[in-house]
């Protein structure tokens, strides 16, 4: 049952693939042009996925499971968090990894289900544009955020987190 048919065994080396010398390289499956991007994307999904489990679980726990949970979330809460560079870096890393992970997942799904070339091109163009806009917007918000806002009279606004009082006065 397990005996091999000697005529079916191919030599390991020495014989080229059929018609390999007569076909334009762009039609060959072995072309090296797009191979490494998909490999990098495959590894990225696993590495970023593992990191995102930690990043998002801590994000959900610290925002929803401790203190007053959902009720504590307001302007002052965000301002208080981003006063700490660790949370700035945390949210920045989460933003970039989640957007790239999600965009690559959506790219895979578009490639799987959109059969027309023009449909794929359109959907992926919209996807990449949305991804770029959200990453740039989110990054700018994290780094240009001003927690201690003053009103026209120069007084601290009601929404400010408590640490602003020592910063402004």
């Amino acid at each position, binding site marked *: 049952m397990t005996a091999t048919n000697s005529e079916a065994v191919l030599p390991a080396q020495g014989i080229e693939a059929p018609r390999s010398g007569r076909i334009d390289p762009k039609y060959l499956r072995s072309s090296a042009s797009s191979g490494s991007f998909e490999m990098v994307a495959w590894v990225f999904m696993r590495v970023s996925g593992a990191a995102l489990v930690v990043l998002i679980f801590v994000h959900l726990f610290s925002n929803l499971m401790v203190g007053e949970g959902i009720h504590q979330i307001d302007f002052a809460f*965000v301002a208080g968090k981003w006063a700490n560079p660790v949370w700035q870096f945390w949210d920045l890393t989460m933003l970039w990894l989640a957007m790239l992970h999600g965009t690559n997942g959506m790219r895979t799904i578009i490639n799987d289900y959109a059969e027309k070339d023009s449909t794929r091109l359109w959907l992926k163009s919209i996807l990449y544009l949305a991804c770029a806009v959200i990453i740039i917007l989110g990054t700018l918000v994290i780094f240009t955020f001003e927690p201690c806002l003053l009103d026209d009279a120069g007084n601290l606004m009601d929404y400010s987190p408590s640490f602003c009082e020592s910063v402004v006065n």
Partner: protein
Amino acid sequence: MWSWVGHRITGVGIFFFLLVHVLDTSLVRVSPEAYDAVIGAYKHPIMIMGEIGLVGAIVFHAFNGLRIILVDFWKQGTRYHRQMLWAVMVLWFVTMVAFSIRHLMIFFEGWEGF
């Protein structure tokens, strides 16, 4: 097969929430009033149920994703993929019971009515 379908559906759902979530958080740069008004919507009872659904999708995608990593990189991964799917479902259930109880308790404690 069904874990693959579930992974795709939860992934797409989480992706669209992520777009909305970055936009609503960006309102801190517009004004405190704008941010507080929009984030207040997340404290409505309907949204509380939505948050439990969202976290359910995230927790499934996370645990099933870790299972995929183990299938790909652990030597015994393909042999135990079925047992690991059971582990994913048990861990998902336990995590979701804990999260839902805590989230609902906090919600009812601070809820000021409609």
